[in-house]
C-alpha cells in the first residue's frame, strides 16, 4: 500500500469552504424536508388510527406506496419525471430557483413522511383507548380530541423513535447528490476530484456526519428527559422499515 497522506488539503484552497457549504446545504435540505415529513407523518399517522374507513385507507395507500420504493428512485422521479408535467411558467420558476433542491426536499419529505407515519401510528396506538373515550365524553369532537389530547401525548411518547427517524432523514439526504444538490457528500466528492485525496476528503465528510448525528441525538435525549411521561414509553421496534 503506497499512499501519501496530506491532510493539509482540507484547509488549503477552498476545501474548508466547500465542506462548510456542504454542511449548510445538508442542514437546510434536511430541515425543510423534515418539516414536510413531520406534517405528512402526523396527519397520515393519525388518519391511520381513525374509525372512518376511506380516510384510513387513503393514509395506508400513501404509506405503503412511498416507503416501499427506494429513495433514489423517488429522487429521480421528482427531479426528472415530475417537472416536465408542470405548466411552463412553473417550470421556469423552478429551474431558476434550484429545482434540484426542491425535488430533493419533496423526495425526502414524502418518503420520510411515510416512514414517520408508522412511528406516529404506533405512538397513538400505545395510548390507552380510555384516553380518547374520556376526551370525547367531555364533549370534544373527534378532531378536537386528536388535536388537543391524542397527538400532543403521542408526540411526547415517540421522541426516541422519532429522533432515530430524523437521523435517518439526515443520513438519507446524502442521496440528493445524485440529482446534483451540493450537500455534504457532494462536496466531499468535489474535494476528492480536485485534490485526488480520497482518504482525507472522505474522513472529513464522515466525521462531520458523525458529529452532526451525535449532536442531534444528545439534544434529543435531553428533550426526551424533559417531556417524558412517567410510566409510559413506546415499545422500541427493531429493524423498522
Amino acid at each position, binding site marked *: 500500500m503506497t499512499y501519501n497522506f496530506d491532510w493539509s488539503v482540507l484547509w488549503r484552497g477552498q476545501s474548508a469552504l466547500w465542506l462548510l457549504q456542504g454542511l449548510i446545504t445538508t442542514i437546510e435540505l434536511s430541515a425543510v424536508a423534515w418539516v414536510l415529513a413531520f406534517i405528512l407523518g402526523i396527519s397520515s399517522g393519525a388518519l391511520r388510527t381513525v374509525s372512518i374507513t376511506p380516510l384510513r385507507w387513503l393514509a395506508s395507500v400513501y404509506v405503503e406506496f412511498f416507503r416501499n420504493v427506494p429513495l433514489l428512485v423517488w429522487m429521480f*422521479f421528482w427531479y426528472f*419525471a415530475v417537472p416536465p408535467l408542470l405548466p411552463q411558467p412553473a417550470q421556469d420558476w423552478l429551474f431558476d430557483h434550484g429545482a434540484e433542491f426542491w425535488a430533493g426536499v419533496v423526495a425526502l419529505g414524502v418518503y420520510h413522511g411515510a416512514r414517520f407515519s408508522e412511528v406516529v401510528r404506533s405512538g397513538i396506538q400505545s395510548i390507552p383507548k380510555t384516553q380518547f373515550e374520556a376526551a370525547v365524553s367531555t364533549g370534544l369532537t373527534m378532531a378536537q380530541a386528536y388535536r388537543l389530547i391524542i397527538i400532543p401525548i403521542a408526540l411526547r411518547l415517540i421522541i426516541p423513535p422519532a429522533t432515530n427517524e430524523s437521523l435517518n432523514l439526515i*443520513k438519507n439526504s446524502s442521496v440528493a447528490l445524485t440529482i446534483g444538490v451540493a450537500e455534504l457528500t457532494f462536496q466531499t466528492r468535489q474535494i476528492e476530484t480536485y485534490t485526488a485525496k480520497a*482518504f482525507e476528503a472522505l474522513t472529513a465528510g464522515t466525521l462531520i*456526519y458523525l458529529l452532526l*448525528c451525535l449532536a442531534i441525538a444528545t439534544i434529543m435525549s435531553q428533550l426526551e428527559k424533559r417531556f417524558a411521561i412517567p410510566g409510559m414509553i413506546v415499545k422500541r421496534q*427493531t*429493524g423498522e*422499515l
Partner: protein
Amino acid sequence: MDFSVIINNVSFLILQGFLGLGNFTGGTLRLAVPAIILGFLLGTFIGIGRLARSRWIYVPTTVYVEFFRGVPLVMVIFWFWFIIPVLVGKALPEYSVALAAFVIFEAAYFGEIVRAGIQSVPRGQAQAATATGLTQAQTMRHVILPQALRNMIPALVTQSIVLLKDTSLASIIGYVDLTKAAQIVNNREIRPFELYLFIAVIYWLCSYGMSRYAQHIERRLAINPA
C-alpha cells in the same frame, strides 16, 4: 404518456437490470441476495460479539455498529470505491465493491437484530443448557441461536427489504442494477415519467410482497408460541 417505451425495453430492464442476466455484470437481485446472506452471517458474529463478556470483543463490535449506523450508506459506498483500489493496488469491478460495501454496512444493522433476538431468549434457557454440560459455544449454537432466530424472523425480513431498496444506491458507482438500467434507457428515450414509475412499481411489488410475508410469519409465530 407513452408506455410503449416500457414494452420495448422490458427485457433489458427486467433481465439485465433486475435479474442480472445480460452483457453487463449487474442485477438488483444478484447484488441483494448475496448481500443479505453474507450481511446476516457477519451480523450474527457482530451481534454475539456485542453480548460478549470480554471487553476486547464487546468494545470493537459496539464501535463497529455505532459507526456504521451513524454514517450514510452513500458515504460508505464511496469509501469502498476509493479506498479498495489503494489497499488492493488495482481497481476492482463495481460488483465486488458494492457487495463488500453492502455486507459491511448492513452487518451493523443485522447485528442489532441478532443481539435483540438473543436477548429475547429467557436466561433460564442458557442456564439449563449449561447445567446439562454443554459448553458456552454449544449452548449458543444448539439452544440460544435456534430460538433467537425464530424471534428475529420478522425483523430480518424487514431489514432484507431495506437492503433490497438500498441496492439502488450501487448505481452511483456505475453498477447496472434496475435503477441504472432505467437511467440508461432514459438517456436514449427521454421518457423519465414512464420509466421511473415502472421501476418504482417493480421495487414496490418486491418489497410490499416481502413485508406481507413478514406479517404472515409474525402471525403464525404468534399463534404457535415456542
